[in-house]
């Protein structure tokens, strides 16, 4: 039993739903109690989908448990087929149905439905959402895709995009353009946008572009082995990775490596004079493995940040993330415990967080700016505008997204020079973030409920025996809020190392000189 406040990933059947909802003409019959239908709103509200996810829930109730939940399942499956006439059906159980052991897969097979019926084994008490998506897509591909004659021209399948994916919609367009510039067309994009009939013709492509290892690595490996299709290992997020991707595709296909950089602005923006204020900013990275690995490279090589910590919530990606962290001389945090991530961030006191919506909350509480780089998704992660992460435009988007939460160059200097200004208080965020009125409770949200003071679970850092003298404490308050945490921590470390148990104004400035870069 594990106490959980927030989760980075949903249960595995939600991963299966992401695959099914991204596809067309596929239906998912899910043995589940009524409450599990909440998952529909993830798609219709967060992603603003205009169709219900293609999922039929059996919605059994307590009174059914003593009776016949198996028949209920068969009836639901038959009704779903009759009503939706899908090209293929996937069947499975959610966490509760797994406990009653009705074997939906076995039952569906005996029903003799006239379309392929694909059973899913998704252990709810061991695995999570990404596994569910990866396994579901793998089972669909394994059942439907067959070796076949290749297309005459060089073509690729783009694999990995799903419903409710972080910018998947726009990444598809960007990668399609990258390939098109090299004279390679797309055979099938899957699971998002494809039907079971499309999956059946995936074997015609010359290779696969594995866009998101989280959701399609098992399928990519199977197709490499059984359909003889190589797959790309580089995820084209960032300038360097996009160049490497183009080279990798050239190697696989024998085509010339070609990259149209006419719209690429990140390199010049990073080299422009005002970007010196980005140099050496201490950042902490957290998210899914793929996006964190890409962000680490961009942060270090393309923005000039100092990566002080990184990690991912999906254990499947622990190995590459640990390796990358080791290369950078830091330790990786592999956990799905949000409180642990919070503790790490508190201890590291980065100047910026590149994380998920969870870390955005942590940043808010600790007064550290945060840009979102990864799922789990929020309604804000589905912007109306074109906003990819991959390819040339993705690099441009990332530059803007990461710089946006920061205090701009000259503004930072002004804050240093006029730190006594009454408007430069802790609650005043960067000036381009709109008014600094007290956060209004939005209408429609849980506003009318009495607000209490948010209490943090996390225990305060042990301040040990070091005492701040009043004038030093006063001086500390004059330091701009966005570096104050670091100054406090550095000063305390400095004092502890020297056996100083009282921090005076002099100690503060001695520490500043000691840590000066």
């Amino acid at each position, binding site marked *: *039993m*594990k*106490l*959980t*406040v*927030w*989760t980075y990933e*949903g*249960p595995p*059947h*939600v991963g299966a739903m992401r695959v099914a909802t991204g596809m*067309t003409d596929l239906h998912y019959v899910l043995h589940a*109690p*009524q*409450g*599990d*239908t*909440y*998952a*529909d*709103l*993830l798609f*219709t*509200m967060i992603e*603003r*989908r*205009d*169709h219900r996810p293609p999922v*039929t*829930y*059996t*919605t*059994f*109730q*307590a009174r*059914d*448990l003593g009776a016949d939940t198996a028949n209920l399942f068969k009836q*639901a499956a038959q009704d779903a087929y009759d009503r939706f006439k899908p090209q293929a059906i996937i069947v499975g159980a959610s*966490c*509760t149905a797994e*406990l009653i052991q009705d074997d939906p897969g076995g039952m569906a097979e005996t029903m003799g439905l006239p379309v392929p019926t694909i059973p899913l084994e998704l*252990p*709810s*008490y*061991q695995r999570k959402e990404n596994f569910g998506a990866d396994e579901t897509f793998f089972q669909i591909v394994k059942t439907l895709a067959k070796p076949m004659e290749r297309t005459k021209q060089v073509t690729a399948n783009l694999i990995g995009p799903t419903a409710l994916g972080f910018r998947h919609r726009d990444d598809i367009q960007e990668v399609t353009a990258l390939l098109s510039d090299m004279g390679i067309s797309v055979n099938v994009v899957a699971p998002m*946008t494809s039907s079971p009939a499309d999956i059946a013709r995936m074997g015609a492509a010359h290779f696969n572009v594995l866009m998101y290892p989280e959701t399609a690595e098992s399928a990519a490996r199977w197709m490499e082995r059984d359909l003889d299709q190589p797959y790309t290992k580089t995820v084209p997020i960032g300038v360097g990775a996009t160049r490497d991707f183009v080279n990798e595709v050239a190697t696989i296909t024998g085509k010339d490596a070609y990259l149209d950089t006419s719209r690429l602005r990140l390199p010049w923006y990073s080299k422009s004079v005002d970007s010196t204020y980005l140099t050496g900013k201490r950042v902490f990275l957290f998210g899914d493995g793929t996006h964190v690995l890409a962000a680490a490279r961009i942060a270090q090589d393309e923005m000039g940040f100092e990566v002080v910590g990184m990690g991912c919530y999906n254990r499947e990606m622990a190995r590459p993330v640990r390796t990358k962290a080791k290369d950078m001389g830091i330790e990786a945090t592999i956990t799905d415990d949000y409180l642990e991530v919070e503790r790490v961030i508190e201890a590291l006191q980065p100047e910026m967080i590149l994380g998920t*919506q969870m870390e955005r909350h942590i940043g*808010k509480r600790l007064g550290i700016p945060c840009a979102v780089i990864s799922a789990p998704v929020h*309604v804000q992660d589905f912007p109306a505008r074109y906003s990819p992460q991959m390819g040339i435009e993705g690099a441009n988007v990332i530059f803007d997204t990461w710089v946006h939460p920061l205090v701009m160059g000259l503004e930072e200097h002004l804050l240093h020079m006029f730190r006594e200004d009454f408007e430069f208080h802790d609650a005043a965020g960067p000036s381009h973030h709109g008014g600094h009125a007290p956060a209004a409770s939005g*209408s*429609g949200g*849980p*506003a*009318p*409920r*009495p607000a*209490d003071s*948010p*209490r943090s*679970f996390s225990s305060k850092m042990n301040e040990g025996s070091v005492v701040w003298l009043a004038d030093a404490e006063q001086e500390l308050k004059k330091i701009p809020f966005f570096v104050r945490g670091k100054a406090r921590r550095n000063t305390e470390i400095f004092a502890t190392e020297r056996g100083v148990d009282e921090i005076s104004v002099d100690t503060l400035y001695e520490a500043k000189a000691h840590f000066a870069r």
Partner: protein
Amino acid sequence: MTELPRLPTAGGCRETPILKQRGQREVFCGLTGIIWLHRKMQDAFFLVIGSRTCAHLLQSAAGVMIFAEPRFGTAILEETDLAGLADAQDELDKVVDELLIRRPDIKQLFLVGSCPSEVIKLDLAKAAERMTQRHAPSVRVLNFSGSGIETTFTQGEDACLASMVPVLPKTDERQLLLVGALPDVVEEQAIGLLEAMGIGPIKVLPAPRANSDLAVGPNTVYALTQPFLGDTHDALTRRGARHIPAPFPFGEEGTTQWLAAIATEFGVAPELFEQVTTAPRARARKAIAQAAEALNGMSIFFFPDSQLEIPLARFLTRECGMEAIEVGAPFIHKGIVGPDLDLLAEGPTISEGQDVDLQLDRAKAAKPDLTVCGLGLANPLEAEGLATKWAIELVFTPVHFYEQAGDLAGLFSRPIRRADLLKLDPVSSDGKYDGGVGAGPHAQQP
């Protein structure tokens, strides 16, 4: 007292046969109630004993992601817990110890059962008893089920409040108990009106804190402020308290009838009742009239969601001039919503439970001007050109009593006003709008 409600001439809906279908339901489970209960009870923590799905539901339902540290969490069952039940109780003790050390401010802990914990028959009542002894007197531990195999959405609040009733101290004092978790501002208005009529003492369940002087007994009379509190109603009756049946306090008429029922019980003079209610009644009528302009003559279709459907249909048809096509509720308790059914004119289909696909067929055929439904259905229906009102907003917004009556009507008129305001659909060559149904982003997927 005051003038009697105009009963529908053709008769109300109390005896209307109820359409019951069995099929897929599209509703939240009772765990969802935790989202507002944990804000209402400021020293309570809700610990769900369940799966990753439960944790995911709570954070998804909580406005997608919430901005303050919540006073709820999930003890996620793992393979090892499922293997042997003896473990699960020990594991739960560990989790609770850990939690209470971290949160010494917690005075009430609710162990909340879920689908998986019900299926494996994890005895949370036993656990709560053991923990109450262990952590007494600083923490009281109670348990209830919010599982989706037993409860629907607002039934979670009912189960929670019902779990508190047996442990309330006994009192013989003559008192009024208001039952239901309301936003503070609304609760204060109700108490203000009743006190102005000289009614008291007034207590509220749930109280904001555990150490309140809440008690119950044979001289307690209680009024429900929410129509979904069937189990709580029964639990209070078992403690000897007596229910004051009334229409629910939505709209001017509902609020007046609700207050009148209590005033009658306490023998309030008609003049005093008039004096206290005249001004707010006039304000409520005026506010409703503004929003009702857009609603008058419009048809409405309710999918089952919060159990507020019947009282709301009564309000919208009688005070806003709407026509109800179907009023679906997850569960209909006639002992509680009977007075509202009496006032709801015969005509609409009254349905309980659902087969969502069949109900969607009926809604699409009826083409209502406004459809009240859950979040999973709203955007898909909007994309088909049906204006919708998300039902969950009705339990997350102050909508009770006189001063909110206009806001309540406004919740329904806004989607209709929006449809008039937006000029987004393509204009055909003859200058007329040529539809625009199905204009959603995924409408033309390859």
